[in-house]
């Protein structure tokens, strides 16, 4: 098990390196200097001055050296200095904004799991009931509707018509501003969790072991929660990894709409400003989050399903 974990962790490194390298090359292929005031509509700087500023940030060095410097700095936790928010290091920017995004993402993910799975179980256990049809309607719209469309509709209903909740979340210290962005971010994942749970339950309920359990005279509730649920949730665990990535990338649209002071905003503005260090850092963060969540999913999968455990053991022996 430890060996397997180590092997998987080592395998992450080339993936992350490839992502940073592609990002680095694409960014440097964009013509123009990040310090050219023309980007912000300012007057031109004399070329010597521009060259001096670029030299200060190490942009006059050959590209391979710049890339290696960045990777080297990242290894010791130094992400460089932001070009757009001068005088502030990327680590400082992250310290202010990352907790907000993480909190929003965690709240949405928890809500999606905590509501999606029970709804899926109820719908699957009472197939064809009114509740089942309501859940199906919810999942279809949750999967189809983009998070920023949901955001606009939530603002319309809860802020403009009912006047219950604020339309923007600038004042993040007030908990009532958390509700709408969390709902907007959670609906899609919630729908996917509910749909997979329902399908898993229906699939397992038709199994022979369920007939045996019922024939033994077990209570339906015991059949459902003791026997069916564990294997029905396997596909849900599998999709949880990609869903985490969806929440991470979906969050910058939702954060922009509600003006949440998280890192999503920085990502968008850093692209316009050619803020190389910020872009690189965010790509590495999102990439690492995605790869790590896939790893956690695989480990959970092994813990839940003895068959994969056995298969993995066989695989390592050979």
């Amino acid at each position, binding site marked *: 098990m430890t060996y397997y974990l180590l092997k998987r962790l080592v395998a992450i490194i080339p*993936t992350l390196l*490839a*992502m940073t390298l*592609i*990002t680095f090359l*694409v*960014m440097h*292929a*964009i013509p123009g200097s990040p310090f050219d005031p023309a980007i912000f509509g300012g007057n031109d700087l004399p070329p010597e001055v521009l060259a001096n500023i670029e030299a200060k940030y190490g942009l006059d060095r050959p590209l391979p050296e710049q890339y290696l410097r960045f990777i080297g700095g990242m290894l010791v936790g130094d992400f460089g200095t932001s070009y757009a928010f001068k005088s502030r290091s990327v680590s400082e920017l992250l310290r202010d904004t990352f907790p907000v995004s993480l909190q929003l993402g965690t709240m949405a993910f928890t809500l999606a799991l905590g509501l999606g799975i029970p709804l899926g179980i109820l719908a699957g256990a009472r197939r064809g009931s009114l509740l089942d049809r309501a859940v199906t309607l919810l999942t*279809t*719209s949750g*999967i*189809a*509707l*983009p998070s*920023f*469309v949901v955001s*606009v*509709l939530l*603002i*319309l209903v809860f*802020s*403009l018509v009912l006047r219950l909740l604020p*339309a923007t979340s600038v004042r993040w210290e007030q908990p009532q501003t958390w509700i709408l962005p969390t709902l907007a971010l959670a609906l899609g994942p919630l729908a996917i969790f509910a749909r997979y749970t329902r399908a898993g339950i229906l699939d397992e309920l038709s199994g022979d072991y369920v007939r045996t359990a019922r024939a033994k005279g077990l209570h339906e509730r015991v059949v459902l929660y003791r026997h069916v649920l564990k294997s029905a949730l396997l596909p849900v665990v599998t999709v949880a990894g990609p869903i985490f*990535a969806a929440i*991470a*990338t979906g969050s*910058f*649209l939702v954060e*922009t*709409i509600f003006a949440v002071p998280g890192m999503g905003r920085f990502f*968008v503005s850093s*692209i*316009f400003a050619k803020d190389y260090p910020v872009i690189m850092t965010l*790509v590495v963060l*999102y*990439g690492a989050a*995605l*790869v790590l969540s896939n790893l956690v999913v695989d480990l959970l999968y092994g813990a839940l399903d003895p068959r994969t455990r056995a298969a993995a053991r066989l695989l390592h022996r050979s």
Partner: protein
Amino acid sequence: MSLEQEFTIAAAAQAPAHPNNAAAPPAQALPQRHRTLWGDVWRRLRRDPAALSSVIFLVLLVLLVVLAPFVAPRGYAAQDYTSLRALPNTRYWLGTDNAGRDLWARLVYGGRISLFVGVSVQLVALAVGVPLGLIAGFYGGRADAVIMRVVDVLYAFPNLLFAILLMSWLGPGLTNILVALSITGWLTLCRVVRAQALSLRTRDFIEAARAVGVPPWRILLAHVLPNTLSVIITTVTFGIPQAILAEASLSFIGIGISPPMPSWGQMVSDNILYIRSSWHLAVFPAVALGLTMLAFTSFGDGLRDALNPRAHE
């Protein structure tokens, strides 16, 4: 998908190409009506109210955007300075935006962009993903290894992140959106087609064709391809709304369509600031995008069930 069903699909897909069927002796003709695969699919689709209303909505949408110059004669860029940010009224029945432009016209032309992007990206996906997937799955070996390596590397990137990076390199504009979305747009189709071709490769009817000396390219085109059609159609139907959403998201961020050309995503982000005083400016484009996404998704769901009716039981 069951074995018999694949045979039915294969038979139905090939039916028109076989004159023997039509020339069968009349004594053997059954009183039953001749049924084609697409006839069956349409019959099942018609019984699904969600799918049917989606089809009707999509047909109307296509008509609207094709006839845009007639249904929205004011155009998307014409400004009326006497009517800025007007609420829906008799003259501008969805109101006007911040620059006095007709919101209805901008919605219709925005739909034109959305559908154009959605369909074009999927056409590229068909042209690239299907042949590569067929080759990778059917021939296997080194070709498979090379193709799948490329697919896996591109797949590891979060889709939207990759498109954003490419757009910041290419700059805004419709053509660049098509390029940025097409680069990753064929991956899913390629994987799906490869998986299908891989499972067909060892089937008896392919083996039989090989045994009687049918050349590989002909087996690929006449036997493997028709059997992958139903997954291709479903994947493309789900791919269109994904491309539409990607374009809307890019334009929302401000690196998609360049103004004054309208895009639903850009209209939402431009007008979200005024949502307190002029709610209609952000809400209508959001609703248009939402309805279109819903229609494509439930049409896709219906189509998948209609193509694969046994999956339900």
